């Protein structure tokens, strides 16, 4: 299959959505479980149950993030350059929180001291909650556009500040994201653990699901009525190589809803985001835990897809120089690179999904205080 450039640009937007959703769904529940850890587990044994519910698989799940970033580097280099350097403080904050996770999982139970263990429990909580929140804040800023422009050699200059990143709308998006992973983590935990912990996890996910629905609906209203969206007025043929400044972009209230009025079936994504958590709650109350988890996964996908679909074809709009906005048409790699990377994804992504499934099958089963006590020295 040899695709023309325009089609490949579109395919790559889909690939990036898949990778980000893959991380939100898999890494998402790990981070949610981490955020819940010190609140759900009251004793050391209970906390180890919670940790071991995700311990064996969290590394693979986090790889979705690494791969999404790598793929962004290869397919959307300008986005990688602009977003990572522009959102510097948020990214560094995220990094420092992420540092706590591998060390927390691997080192926590190797020393008996309760202070050591409790410190790492809070470390894992920070490592789960902070990135979840900052990813939401990042999306909130993508939706509003960031203040950046290019000079004559396409060097990017960012003129915003850390304070500006933490604006009210972005903070609301942070709440959406945090509630989303906490809910998802809660539903995942219920499928993997036994004992009184299940009830606590259920309660947590129920509350988080409600917070998510309210915050997500509020965010939707804000996008429709409050913040300005972006719209391409004119641009050169998307089938060619274009530099970001070649197009004309306008800012307009409600422009982020353009795609939904053109393709009504796109409303499915926000619908999943709004209804999914409620359905998952109802299912969990009836004891259909696996189904509740998968519904929660659909809700997470819906929320992330909503953000992506609203902005399409924009990836990172510029608030200070709208014509410099980065879109799927002009922030992408060359035709050759997209074509090669297309094959890499087509071959390896299904393979990754296949062996991930196998690994989850092998490592499935419930974790309880008894299993942790029996395998004291082997488990996390």
């Amino acid at each position, binding site marked *: 299959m040899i695709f023309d450039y325009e089609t490949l640009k579109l395919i790559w937007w889909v690939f990036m959505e898949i990778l980000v959703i893959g991380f939100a769904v898999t890494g998402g529940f790990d981070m949610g479980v981490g955020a819940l850890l010190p609140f759900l587990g009251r004793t050391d044994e209970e906390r180890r149950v919670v940790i071991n519910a995700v311990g064996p698989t969290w590394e693979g799940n986090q790889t979705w993030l690494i791969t999404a970033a790598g793929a962004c580097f290869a397919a959307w280099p300008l986005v990688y350059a602009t977003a990572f*350097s522009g959102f510097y403080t948020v990214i560094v904050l995220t990094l420092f929180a*992420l540092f706590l996770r591998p060390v927390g999982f*691997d080192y926590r139970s*190797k020393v008996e001291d309760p202070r050591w263990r409790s410190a790492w429990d809070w470390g894992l909580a920070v490592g789960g909650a902070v990135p979840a929140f900052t990813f939401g804040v990042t999306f909130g800023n993508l939706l509003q556009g960031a203040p950046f422009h290019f000079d004559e050699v396409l060097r990017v200059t960012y003129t915003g500040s850390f304070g500006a990143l933490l604006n009210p709308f972005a903070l609301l998006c942070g709440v959406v994201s945090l509630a989303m992973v906490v809910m998802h983590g809660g539903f995942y935990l219920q499928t993997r653990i036994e004992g009184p912990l299940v009830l606590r996890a259920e309660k947590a996910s129920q509350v988080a699901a409600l917070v998510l629905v309210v915050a997500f609906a509020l965010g939707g209203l804000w996008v429709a009525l409050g913040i300005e969206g972006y719209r391409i007025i004119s641009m050169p043929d998307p089938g060619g190589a274009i530099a970001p400044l070649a197009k004309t972009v306008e800012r307009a209230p409600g422009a982020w809803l353009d795609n939904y009025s053109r393709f009504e079936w796109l409303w499915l994504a926000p619908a999943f985001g709004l209804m999914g958590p409620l359905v998952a709650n109802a299912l969990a109350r009836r004891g259909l835990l696996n189904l509740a988890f998968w519904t929660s996964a659909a809700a997470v996908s819906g929320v992330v897809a909503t953000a992506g679909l609203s902005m399409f074809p924009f990836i990172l709009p510029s608030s200070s120089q709208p014509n410099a906005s980065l879109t799927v048409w002009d922030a992408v790699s060359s035709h*050759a690179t997209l074509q090669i990377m297309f094959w890499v994804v087509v071959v390896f992504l299904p393979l990754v999904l296949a062996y991930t499934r196998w690994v989850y099958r092998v490592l499935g089963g419930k974790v309880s205080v008894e299993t942790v006590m029996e395998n004291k020295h082997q488990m996390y």
Partner: protein
Amino acid sequence: MPSETVVDLSRLQFALTAMYHFLFVPLTLGLSWLLVIMESAYVMTGKEIYKDMTRFWGKLFGINFAMGIATGITLEFQFGTNWAYYSHYVGDVFGVPLAIEGLMAFFLESTFVGVFFFGWDRLTRVKHLAVTFLVALGSNLSALWILIANGWMNNPVGAEFNYLTMRMELSSIRDVIFNPVAQVKFVHTVAAGYVTAAMFVLGVSSWYMLKGRDLKFAVRSFAIAAGFGLASVLSVIVLGDESGYTTGQVQRVKLAIIEAEWETHPPPAPFTVFGIPNDKTETTDYAIRVPWALGLIATRSVDEEVTGIKDLKKEAEKQVRNGMIAYEALEKLRRGDTNPEVRAAFEETKRDLGYGLLLKRYTPRVVDATPEQIRSAAADTIPKVAPVYWAFRVMVGLGMLLVFAAAFYFVALRKLVPQRWPAPALYDPIAVDRRRVRLVRRRIRPPALDHRGGAPDFPLRFQHRGRRCMVQLDRLRALLQRTACGRVVPHVQVLPLGAE
């Protein structure tokens, strides 16, 4: 232009994070194969002790793997956070191996590493061995793609500059993958990783032997590490020589700096065994030179020149002037000039565009550079000589071959347990008792000498030629790791370690 302090700090940050990451990664590269060897022994013989060994070293693998992940994300994100223009300028080429690394290798190792730890009772022996193998394969493939990316930074092949998008674009993925620099870097670096892992296992096993604890376990681990380490250290030497040859072909500045070759000598060039490079006078003081040696190693001929730093600077001046022409043409092209002459001038000189951009530091307009500024830009292509020169000499002089040869010798003679000397020699860095190490080293030499029948230092200095500078931190890394493991070992409660 960003301020130069920010650039310097970013460089420092990158150097620190890269070195910190590279404390852990080489160890996991090699340790994963040692786990495969130990577990294969378990599957073939059915002896529980090999399973215990795999689990014990597996746990030490795990804590280093975790640190590798924690430090690795920083490296990836850093390209975007601190080197944004670089990311834009080369992302089309450089991003490709990074993305492939994620999909092909990193997913593999990090998905299966959980099964390695938690799948012992859930899988058959052979299936579990297959999982261990996949972890090792994943981590080594990961190194391959990262070093392809790094190799491209050293020798950017298979890419062309596109003035419409203002960046380097991929022209041949084959050239990028089979870049000779990437290939020698990969084999040399993983082999160095194997040495690190073998050193680590040797060190910890020696600690157990010295304490008289779990001897059966310690001796077997020692034996496997000695064999694996000897093979690896020999590979490092041979592949390092290959790396030196490749450097001589495509990275002449690097070679000249490493050897402090200020002048171009008539071929074959002499090799400076010792000397103190002096950046001011551009000479090497107190130099002791061996005639012919450098020419033979770097060019593998007697009639090719090894270009000296002064001549390289002159060449760079020409390239900077070329780069100015390229920059002028580029500006016209970007303004929409369609004159074929401008286009032709650009195509002819665009190879040197980067040299032209070096002038940005002195004059933002580039095209109006004075001869003085051109000279300064050309001088910027030559880094400070002394740090690279000395770092390389430290790396080459480490003498790891001796350690592994001696360890292997005693394993082969089955004299390991009564022979107590290797243990303190390897373990002492943990105690940081330097005097004792030196004493012990003096004691090591005679048996090794007798056995090999020659001065052990002699072949070392010369065979080690050409090892990559990055790897010179090998010993420091091994030492740090042993220090770290000295503290961790008492906490690793994997086992009942055996029946002793």
